[in-house]
């Protein structure tokens, strides 16, 4: 039965992909292209392009895309449910343990050293995105340097540090300003 198959395939993706997007892509490919042959390889690469251009976790994007294609809206819903069910069960258990033993001395000490390490990870994620924004394709070379991106980054950063503006409007404005500035330069107005 196709609904059950979709559900189980994405359940496996949700259960075995540890560590975010890139780990998930390999598993999704295995399920969707190799095992079940729901998508061709070129459809799969379309899927990863869409996933990169739209919000949301790649596993949910893929579940919706494949589910819709194979079995319409119910397929999309079941595949998505499969991809998030392991998260819901495992993380609510972990949350229960965390809030129950948060005060314990040993756990306190362990958390105290995990926190700065986590800041280091977030810093790395931020700088990787910055690298891709300021250098097209992420190569650190003069020819791929994008001054407009850098100026927008610095301006957005200062605004976020100095004012209480919320992050999402700042992000959206960055995109729109980048578009406008590029159109002006391309149009030869300046």
């Amino acid at each position, binding site marked *: 039965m196709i609904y059950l198959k979709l559900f189980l395939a994405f359940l496996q993706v949700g259960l075995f992909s540890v560590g975010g997007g890139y780990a998930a892509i390999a598993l999704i490919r295995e399920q969707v292209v190799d095992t079940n042959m729901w998508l061709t390889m070129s459809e799969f690469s379309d899927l990863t392009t869409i996933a990169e251009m739209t919000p949301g976790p790649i596993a949910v994007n893929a579940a919706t895309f494949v589910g819709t294609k194979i079995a319409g809206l119910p397929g*999309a819903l079941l595949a998505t449910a499969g991809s998030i069910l392991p998260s819901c069960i495992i993380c609510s258990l972990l949350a229960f343990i965390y809030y129950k033993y948060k005060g314990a001395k040993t756990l306190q000490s362990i958390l105290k050293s995990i926190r700065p390490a986590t800041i280091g990870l977030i810093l*790395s994620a931020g700088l990787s995105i910055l690298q891709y924004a300021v250098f097209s394709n992420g190569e650190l070379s003069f020819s791929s340097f994008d001054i407009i991106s850098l100026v927008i980054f610095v301006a957005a950063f200062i605004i976020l540090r100095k004012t209480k503006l919320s992050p999402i409007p700042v992000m959206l404005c960055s995109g729109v300003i980048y578009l406008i500035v590029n159109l002006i330069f391309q149009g030869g107005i300046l």
Partner: protein
Amino acid sequence: MSEKENSKTRILLKLFFSMLYISTFTFGGGFVIVTLMKKKFVDEYHWIEEQEMLDITSIAQSSPGAIAVNAAVIVGKKLGGIMGIIAATLGTVIPPLVIISVISFFYNAFSENPYVALILKGMQAGVAAVILDVVCSLSKDYVKNRKIFEIILIAVSFTAVFFLKINVILIILCAAAIGFVTVLIKNKKAVKK
């Protein structure tokens, strides 16, 4: 409906719509949504403490599944038990579900549109600014109080993942081990005294 139930429903609705809003505009990976959640739930609503948000981030990162969904589940559980988990998870999942179903119909027009590409490219700069702003506010306390141990840990974990490309979960496990050893040493010292 009693007053208590009323305020609980209000929190659930607020949680659902916050996640719906955040999830609609989260481009580029799990850490982006975690920083947006920090801005909303720690800085704006004061529902969660800053340190707690870091703990949630590391749990979400080390568990299987999407980081966004994992973090939503933990925050939802804390704020409203099972109903909280459902509210937060639905809020996280509905935007990509709707957007992907719509876009898969006119995929080519969307993915080859030069304006869309330029906006997305420009948004990367804004996303980087948001993440680095959150990093600054998270590490402010450590820097101000000259907590050398924590500052070294930030630097080491950053170097390990950014330059050496070491697996993120391995880094979190190592940090946990360091914390565990520290508490053992402290206990030993306390016994000797």
